[in-house]
């Protein structure tokens, strides 16, 4: 008896909701103020034959915001990857920096970034934008914003791009880990994400000079940002690491490398798999609609390139280093992903495998090379994002029919700008307040010296 009583409310509630909805639906169509009025009005004004187009637009917009959420998840991937490949005494600091970056990345993108990134008509080089207004105004909340090519609303466009923006600064975070002064990094990453990334991005995605190369006929091509996102972050990281110097104890007096072990391979692996997962949004969302053909291709090339990068890095690291190094295999997956990002929509399946594999091989040598020349990058960010970003961008000319000269000009333009911008900003911060913690603080760990707390409290 009691069982029946407990079961009753469920179906009852359902029936109630169903009744309410049945009553509401026609009401919405007739009354002025309903949540889908503008949509219905548009269908009516355009004519019934446009209904499939509206459906396509709606599905596309839904995909865009899902993709934005996937890109958001990449920040958790970055956080755990960086934490895993560094020492446990700096874990709080790493996580803290990642909290800061996603927060300031989103806020700064609203305040200045979006309109700097996409200035509309401008001189092609630089136009600092103002804060975003109501992006739903003037048809921005419908397909009036970008038609069926850019099949999203103004807010959809904003939030997807905003998630991208913070990525550039996150790349630097890993490279400077374990010795950068927190306050200096917070200021640096803010300027980098608000102005550096967005100015460089405007050259290509914002309709600036890179997209106008060859009179617009032979424009620079970078589908989802091998150069304008990953390359930018990698080049900025290189400049920052040069100013910062290697971690204490990484190099012995006679110049040999003394590795500083990451404290958690499980965390690093979780991070890479999250990044791989999020990359489906990063590349897939860059289709800018749910256009089935390109979307399926992009998902496939993205996954295959990552897989090929993983395998190539395993083969190369095993044969060169004599041991199958997990951290190299993880970097190899990411290398494959960065390598396909510029051309994910414009290369064949076989090409994507080659592009990913070459990236996975390059990254092993790049990591060893940077270690040798005393560019101390605890997580391999410069190699993964910077070096493979170059390869991925140039590879679109080899496999995807982009103009080789334009690709090279684009790489040089963005990389040089990112490097110099980072060098100047980080250099000025160094002169004013210093960018590095003291030797004592470094050996004690940034968790205690900067935050006064531990990631792994042994007493609880």
């Amino acid at each position, binding site marked *: 008896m009691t069982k029946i009583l407990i079961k009753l409310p469920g179906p009852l509630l359902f029936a109630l909701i169903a009744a309410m909805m049945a009553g509401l639906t026609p009401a919405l169509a007739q009354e002025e103020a309903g949540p889908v009025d503008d949509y219905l009005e548009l269908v009516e004004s355009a004519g019934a034959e446009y209904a499939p187009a509206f459906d396509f637009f709606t599905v596309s917009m839904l995909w865009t915001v899902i993709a934005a959420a996937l890109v958001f998840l990449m920040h958790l991937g970055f956080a755990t990857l960086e934490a895993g490949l560094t020492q446990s005494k700096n874990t709080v600091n790493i996580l803290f920096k990642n909290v800061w970056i996603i927060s300031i990345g989103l806020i700064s993108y609203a305040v200045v970034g979006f309109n700097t990134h996409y200035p509309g008509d401008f001189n092609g080089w630089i136009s600092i934008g103002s804060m975003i207004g109501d992006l739903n105004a003037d048809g921005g909340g419908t397909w009036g914003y970008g038609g069926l090519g850019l099949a999203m609303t103004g807010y959809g466009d904003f939030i997807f791009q905003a998630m991208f923006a913070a990525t550039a600064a996150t790349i630097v975070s890993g490279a400077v880990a374990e010795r950068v002064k927190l306050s200096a990094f917070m200021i640096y990453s803010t300027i980098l994400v608000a102005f550096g990334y967005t100015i460089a991005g405007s050259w290509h995605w914002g309709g600036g000079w890179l997209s106008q190369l060859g009179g617009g006929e032979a424009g620079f091509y970078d589908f989802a940002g091998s150069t304008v996102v990953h390359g930018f972050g990698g080049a900025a990281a290189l400049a920052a690491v040069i100013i910062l110097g290697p971690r204490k104890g990484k190099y012995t007096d006679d110049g040999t490398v003394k590795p500083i072990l990451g404290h958690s391979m499980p965390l690093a692996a979780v991070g890479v798999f999250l990044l791989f997962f999020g990359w489906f949004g990063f590349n897939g969302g860059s289709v800018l609609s749910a256009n089935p053909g390109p979307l399926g291709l992009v998902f496939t090339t993205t996954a295959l390139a990552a897989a090929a990068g993983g395998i190539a890095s395993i083969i190369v690291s095993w044969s060169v*280093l*004599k041991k199958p*190094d997990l951290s190299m295999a993880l970097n190899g997956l990411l290398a494959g992903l960065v390598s396909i990002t510029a051309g994910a929509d414009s290369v064949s399946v076989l090409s994507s495998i080659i592009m990913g594999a070459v990236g996975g091989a390059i990254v092993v040598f790049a990591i060893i090379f940077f270690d040798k020349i005393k560019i101390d990058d605890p997580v391999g960010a410069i190699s993964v994002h910077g070096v493979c970003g170059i390869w991925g961008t140039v590879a679109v000319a080899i496999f995807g029919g982009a103009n080789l000269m334009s690709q090279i000009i684009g790489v040089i333009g963005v990389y040089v700008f990112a490097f110099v911008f980072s060098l100047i900003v980080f250099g000025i911060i160094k002169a004013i307040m210093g960018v590095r913690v003291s030797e004592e603080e470094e050996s004690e760990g940034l968790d205690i010296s900067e935050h006064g707390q531990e990631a792994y409290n042994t007493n609880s």
Partner: protein
Amino acid sequence: MKLVVAIIKPFKLEEVKEALSEVGIEGMTVTEVKGFGRQKGHTEIYRGSEYTVDFLPKVKVEIAVQDEAVSQAAEAIAKSAKTGKIGDGKVFVLPLEEAIRIRTDERGDTAL
């Protein structure tokens, strides 16, 4: 009374524990420790760079025993912890002046 301190290979702990209880040892304290002897360390590789691990993980077993049980206990450890390869560890026997069972305030042999 004597304190028997043994440094053994970690994976041998279970066998040592069983061997000790077979000869009537009722309690022991175990600590995870690191160290090296003649075995020295070994090299590992991380992201393309080799490094030496000097201190290898070992387990330290401490037991307090009555004088007449010392040789039996030390023997049991030495036998059960042996693999015949370098790095098997050592057994030390130290004099023990006093023992107190905290709960009952018993002292000396009866406290063990």
